[in-house]
């Protein structure tokens, strides 16, 4: 599973990165988590609110920082 966090240096972007890493750890997922900070790259996904979460090339979350439990559900749905 390939997970990307789209976002610049904002505090909510960092929060999403943290929650994502925690969730992946809790679920024991085999996933690569990376952060996309380049605005040109971010715009390729067509999002207008950051942070956003991309799972296997698909935007699953925009402008929100979910709880670990909510993110778990999201990741299960998108596996």
């Amino acid at each position: 599973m390939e997970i990307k966090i789209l976002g610049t240096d904002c505090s909510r972007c960092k929060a999403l990165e943290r929650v994502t890493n925690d969730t992946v750890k809790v679920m024991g997922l085999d996933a690569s988590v990376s952060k996309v900070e380049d605005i040109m790259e971010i715009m390729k996904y067509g999002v207008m609110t950051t942070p956003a979460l991309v799972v296997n090339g698909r935007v699953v979350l925009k402008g929100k920082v979910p709880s670990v439990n909510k993110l778990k559900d999201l990741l299960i749905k998108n596996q």
Partner: protein
Amino acid sequence: MKEKVVAINRNMNGWFVPAILLPLWIIIYWNLKPLANFVIDDLFGLASGNHLTETVRFFIFEVPKVMLLLVLIIFGVGILRTYFTPEKTRTILEGKSLFTGNILASLLGIITPFCSCSAIPLFLGFVEAGVPLGVTFSFLIAAPMINEVALVLLIGLFGWKVAVIYVGTGLIIAILAGWILGKLGLEKFVADWVYNVKVGQSPELEVKTTFYDRINSGYDAVKDIVGKIWIYIIIGIAVGAGAHGYVPQDLMSNLLGKGNWYGVPLAILIGVPMYSNAAGIIPIVSVLIEKGVSLGTALAFMMSVIALSLPEIIILKKVLKWQLIATFVGIVTVGILIVGFVFNTIM
């Protein structure tokens, strides 16, 4: 206490919790005055009439009042906002003529979820979709300046009149500044790379938003926002209560009082480099007003802190050339100046 209520709410489903809480809210809200009096006179047994008692009475009445208003309005706005995504706003604004577009953009700026950290992707998304530059600016001015938190705090601390004045003049500034910027035809001063950005269309998860989801967004908004700003509100009210009657007229009122023509420009000059959100700045504004700063000057100060700030200018520098930034800052500053002068004159 508040946090606990929110935590319980989140575990329950759907409609019925708000349906029970709302009447409870109304009962408490309308009985706050007798409740506060009961606490002061009967529970604490404080002698009424002296200064300290009245200060405590004010505090005990105002804090729950503002908190209750805040929770209700943020909850409502949290639900409302699930209907207004930036994507929908963009679709509405595409191809609108200049003036109509500016009005719509300013109004939508109030209600569309917006965080200044998303200013760049939002700007790019709008411009790429063909939303006119001036219309985009109206949105970018209104979105941070006018929001539900500012509204509640202004109502709670200064009353309806001041809140309506703030929203009304804020809207006028956003509409006119955007319209003028549009008329000036400054598209060439947008950073060149902006026009080379390829805004992609990535497949998105199609999620049907249920009403339950919307209610939950309301709870989330309350938890998120109230959790962040409650301390500012308590400080703001404490200062308002404490300063009332105690603080002598001093240097502040001489400098920024009604009689001085340079009060407003001075307030803006101090305000622009500062950065704060509405919740952080309103306690300071309440101190200013207590210290004899006139309303127009205080409003101008608040607007300049929220609407114009160095961090925001630095963010915008990535997508705009300095000529455009200078024009933008200049026009908004003039707008705020006019608001300050007008209110110092008529109030």
